[in-house]
């Protein structure tokens, strides 16, 4: 089937089999391998991307369901390609906070954590230890590095609110 969608700001028109998952489209067709596949059964959250601004598990969304929509992956949240200068400023504030707080060990869960954490901060609710832990319910870190992940999300929350002022 023919599919048109926007990924990280760029429009793509592709011919894909109907049984293509969104995560397969991103990883194997578009070579955006920052989105990871952990459990393949919508439990671990490693494949989390934004679909029209909402965090979704891309292993449980058909590519067909993204027809006409806008997808953002970990590759699309920092400074746009071509404007990066190799400095830490290239990073989105959430990425920078994960780096500063040492919120990753093996890094496998990190892209999904970051995409979901961005939605959590942008939803504008109260951010504290409890709301962040509950908000990240759908993302599993097998290194069990949760302590610093929570620290990073709280720090990024401050930075993102500062930036939007």
């Amino acid at each position, binding site marked *: 089937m023919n599919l048109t969608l926007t990924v990280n700001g760029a429009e793509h028109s592709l011919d894909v089999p109907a*049984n293509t998952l969104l995560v397969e489209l991103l990883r194997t067709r578009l070579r955006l391998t920052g989105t990871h596949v952990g459990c393949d059964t919508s439990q671990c959250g490693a494949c989390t991307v934004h679909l029209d601004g909402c965090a*979704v598990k891309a292993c449980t969304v058909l590519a067909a*369901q993204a027809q006409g929509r806008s997808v953002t992956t970990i590759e699309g949240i920092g400074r746009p390609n071509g404007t990066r200068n190799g400095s830490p400023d290239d990073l989105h504030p959430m990425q920078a906070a994960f780096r500063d707080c040492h919120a990753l060990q093996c890094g496998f869960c990190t892209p999904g954590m970051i995409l*979901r954490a961005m*939605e959590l901060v942008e939803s504008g609710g109260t951010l504290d230890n409890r709301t962040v832990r509950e908000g990240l319910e*759908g*993302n599993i870190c097998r290194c069990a590095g949760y302590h610093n992940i929570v620290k990073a999300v709280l720090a990024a929350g401050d930075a993102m609110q500062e930036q939007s002022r």
Partner: protein
Amino acid sequence: MHPFNYHKPSTLAEAVALHQGAEDPAYLSGGHTLLPTMTQRLAAPSDLIDLEGLTELIGIAVDNGTLSIGAFTRHAEVAASTEVQSALPALAELAEGIGDAQVRNRGTIGGSLANSDPAADYPAAVLALNAVIHTDRRQIPADGYFRGLFETALEADEVITRVDFAIPSRAAYEKFPNPASRYATVGVMVADFNGTVRVGVTGAGPCACRADAFEAALSARFDPAALDDAELPAIDFNSDLHASAEYRVHLVRVMAQRATARLASL
């Protein structure tokens, strides 16, 4: 995942016609049970009929003591809806406790009810809030809807269009979530309609049910202690790796008492 034909009809009538004309079709709503089942090759429908975008399945409205929620409303939309929060805060809270944030961004109320997972949250509310399930062809009262494990009164090609909940004077939902999946090990909604109480139980048996003796006890005296000796629903309690039947028996009473205590203390 096995191959299938994907359809995205633009009207409800077209969706039903596609279903009737296909070999082994399935409707696709939020997809958060169907798609994992398909990726694990436990289901292999010949045709998927995507219900997203059907205007007949969209909308939230409050009218004359009834809260209507369109079948394609996602859990996150129910949780965030100011109409639901003010008319039926217990239902908004229930929706906010389903699965995790990413699941709530996709899963829909119609999909959950059509699937009738024994541990889903909405079925407890459908029974406690005396809901009416509207479909493309009829209205099904809550009490006749749940038939068994993943079994409902729906015909194979029938589509839920909306769910009408009766708005009670007060209601509360308490669940004991499985710590990994957030599914209800047991969940109980207690709803008080001006002294007549309804109690919906999920997670305990093959499908959601009412707790008749709990309802009678609470209608006579709205106090958690009124449930101390009340008889449990006569169902086959589930026993699995998450909880034994004995533990679920215990949880039904405790969850009902917690919900009652929350309301009684307001």
